């Protein structure tokens, strides 16, 4: 089974999905392949922050202007993916009034609304903040749901003819002389390989860019920086909280859905497949952020996770934060002898649309087409729907109890119907895909209860793999879950873990060995 398309996009993160949508709106056919599920790379492992740009205002005014521009566009085209929480830049005594003054000036220069607040006003808005604070500045930060954003881009693009293949990895690029004419891919679940022919291949794999380029014998200067984050059980604040000081580690708390996300660290990372949150990072984040909110020390955490940022190496620098966050669009035709291959990398979630626009502009120009970008004008399909916490409770209430259906996840109030609807679409291929598309397993018990409840629904999806009695689906979920849980195991989270371990290892006797051992698997 070989496929053909005009533009082959590699990578199902925000950038890839954005490009697919942009091209679709211009009437250009594309096909996107993603090794895992959408957002399984950096797009799904960030802070969920809708930047106002204020963070960059002092150091990088250009990035700040770019951010606030995209901020305004996203509020217009994707209101349902955004919670307009506003953000505060909080000055502690050690941050000093000078930076604050600079900050306010720089925001004004970048066109970012910045409202200075007195300590009293600040504490009235966010009572958990350190009472020693000397003031704050309110900026139009917000929270964004990256997964919904990507899925909405995909839905829109798909309705306009774009095609998407998840769990499909690129195993090689197809070359015809000095031109790249497609890629060989493998369906990782069905274990089938085939070729996709394309006139253009866009490498939108972010941190993994060199993995694809290596297949064409190319390498670009890309630094990888790991950022670790902690997730609380309940919201710590109503607004995004930033430290009002030069950008550094451990300076932000983002309210996101039911939780808050504490971040971040910044460490060089070489191994893209095996990185983890260390105990030191956890301790560092808690120590550092408890300066802003003293309660952080007693906070209950649900999970820790890390993402890898692709940072363009424009110059030699020891601290990754000095490297520009700007993105680069690289044409591998002239210098590298791989015409038709384009890499878009660097950048950040906030600029995904702009990156897509530039990429599509470039492709159009090469194709000789003169179609303008309209992604900044055209709202995403679900833009009329609400997505606040209240909306989710409301959704449950609106229905009569009988139609409300079973609530599979008691922590995040996900009804069975939501999962059924996803399964009916027929696009998900494994448990993690369902988890990505819902809030299942994102709450207090991190799927401890609801993953069992999903098993009945998954039997269809995993029938063959699951039937040998080894409970491979459940095991691999628990093992994946463990990565996020292990770094935060103390206090109440540790109690929770004893419960979950008692269920799966105790009550259900899932033991380390594969079946065959006494009591391990089926009879």
């Amino acid at each position: 089974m070989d496929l053909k398309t005009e533009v082959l996009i590699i990578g199902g993160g925000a950038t890839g999905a954005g490009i697919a949508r942009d091209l679709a709106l211009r009437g250009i056919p594309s096909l996107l392949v993603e090794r895992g599920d959408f957002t399984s790379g950096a797009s799904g492992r960030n802070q969920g922050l809708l930047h106002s740009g204020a963070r960059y205002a002092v150091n990088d005014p250009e990035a700040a202007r770019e951010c606030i521009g995209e901020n305004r566009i996203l509020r217009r085209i994707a209101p349902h993916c955004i919670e307009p929480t506003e953000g505060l830049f909080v000055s502690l005594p050690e941050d000093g009034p000078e930076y604050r003054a600079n900050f306010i000036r720089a925001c004004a220069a970048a066109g970012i609304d910045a409202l200075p607040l007195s300590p009293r006003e600040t504490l009235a808005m966010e009572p958990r903040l350190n009472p020693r604070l000397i003031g704050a500045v309110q900026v139009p930060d917000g929270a964004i749901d990256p997964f919904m954003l990507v899925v909405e881009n995909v839905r829109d693009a798909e309705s306009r003819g774009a095609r998407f293949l998840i769990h499909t990895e690129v195993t090689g690029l197809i070359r015809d002389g000095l031109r790249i004419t497609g890629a060989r891919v493998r369906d990782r679940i069905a274990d089938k390989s085939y070729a996709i022919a394309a006139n253009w291949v866009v490498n939108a794999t972010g941190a993994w860019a060199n993995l694809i380029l290596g297949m064409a014998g190319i390498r670009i200067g890309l630094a990888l920086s790991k950022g670790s984050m902690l997730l609380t059980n309940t919201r710590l604040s109503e607004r995004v909280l930033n430290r009002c000081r030069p950008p550094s580690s451990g300076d932000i708390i983002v309210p996101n859905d039911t939780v808050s996300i504490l971040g971040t660290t910044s460490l060089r990372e070489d191994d893209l497949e095996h990185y983890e949150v260390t105990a030191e990072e956890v301790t560092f984040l808690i120590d550092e952020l408890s300066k802003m909110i003293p309660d952080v020390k007693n906070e209950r955490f649900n999970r820790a996770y890390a993402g890898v940022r692709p940072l363009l190496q424009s110059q030699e620098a020891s601290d990754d934060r000095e490297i520009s966050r700007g993105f680069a669009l690289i044409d591998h035709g002239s210098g590298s002898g791989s015409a038709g291959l384009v890499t878009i990398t660097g950048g950040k979630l906030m600029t995904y649309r702009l990156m897509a626009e530039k990429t599509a502009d470039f492709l159009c120009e090469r194709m000789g087409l003169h179609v303008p970008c309209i992604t900044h004008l055209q709202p995403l399909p679900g833009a009329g729907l609400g997505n606040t916490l209240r909306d989710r409770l409301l959704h449950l209430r609106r229905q009569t109890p009988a139609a409300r259906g079973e609530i599979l996840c008691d922590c995040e109030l996900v009804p069975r119907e939501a999962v059924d609807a996803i399964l009916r679409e027929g696009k998900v291929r494994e448990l993690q895909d369902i988890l990505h598309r819902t809030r299942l397993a994102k709450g207090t018990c991190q799927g401890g209860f609801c993953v069992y409840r999903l098993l009945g629904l998954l039997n269809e999806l995993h029938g063959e793999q699951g039937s040998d009695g080894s409970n491979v689906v459940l095991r691999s979920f628990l093992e994946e879950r463990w990565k996020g849980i292990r770094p935060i195991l103390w206090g109440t989270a540790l109690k929770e873990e004893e419960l979950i371990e008692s269920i799966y290892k105790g009550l259900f006797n899932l033991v380390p060995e594969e079946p065959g051992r006494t009591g391990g698997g089926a009879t």
Partner: protein
Amino acid sequence: MKRFDLIVLGTGLAGLTAARTAVETGAKVLIVGRGMGAVTLFGNTIDLLGTIPPGTDIAEGIARWIADHPEHPYARTGVKGIEDALADFRGLFPPPYGFAAEDNGNSLLPTGAGTIRPTYLFPVTMAAGAAMIPSETLIVGFRGFKDFQGDTVSLHLKCRGVNLALPRYGLEGTTALALARLMDAASFRERLGEAIRRQMGGERFIGLPAVLGLRNPAAVLKTLEKTTGARVFEIPLLPPSIPGTRVFHRFREELIAKGATFLMGHSVSRANVKGGRCEGIAVENPPLVTEYCADRYILATGRFLGGGLWAEMEQIVEPLFHLPIFQPGEREQWFGKRFFDPEAHPIHRAGIVTDADLRPVDETGRVVLENVRAAGSILAHHQAIEEKSREGIDIATGFLAAKRALAT
């Protein structure tokens, strides 16, 4: 101030056993716990030591285990101590709802994940599960009952499975307790039996989620077996555990009937310790704090989940008496890198180390509090989750702690 012969802290199986052992001797007992103990979550069966293969005599197996594990709580109770304690436990559950073992060894019972697991004593409602033959078994689940995935059980056990729609319930879902309550009503279980019979294709065994009634499980079993003509068994499922709740209710009923004071719902906020003895405890129900005292105390507050142990970021503590705790290194070393590490996570070995009398000792082996004994999962050097020894440790050490405490 109210004075008792014995105060038991904790309403899990260890505390319940200790309190019951004490009231049997006529002692004036106070039992106090923050809530219902872990028996309500996991106490489906009475595990003794799952590592002993079925077919091996349990006493022999435990004797060998004790020889190999001299620090294990069972080394404190000895085989005889376990046997006496279990006999006492079984005495609390007379027929028709009794607990039994098969051939004095471990049996393998199916679980809600479709696995099988070893256990020692099981209630009469699970007996057929040990004997079931997959090809002759029908697994019955209920639509709208999310905590028991019948399809998964039948898939893994290689049985036939069926999901029944519940009369009177629509799509809104139901809970284990609601189902157990329905089962307690004769008319419901008769109709259910009929519904199951119509689904049968010659099966001789029927597996159902462990919700066969809270008040009268033996009658539910009888009705279902009569209407279906097959042997019926319960399969343990996600917490809360209905069989465990039965155990809890039975103990509570017995303790209250025998005059014990049963306090549940508020935590013990502090203990008064003077001169190596506990002189009293304070129970907190805001805004009030009530003090109680006794000559002897048994600490059976469980592990982390029960609140007997608490993990700070740097160390593990016992929050009430601040007893010395056996620590498995620093936080980074508490848990293995994988959830399914071949070795149990080191933290599971943490807990209170005691003398032969179950009195907590410090690192030098010195008794810390003369009139306090520790029982149940709070003890160090067992791995109840992996070993499948949770209830055995609770019952054996709870029994021993009460006996030893009252002998002083």
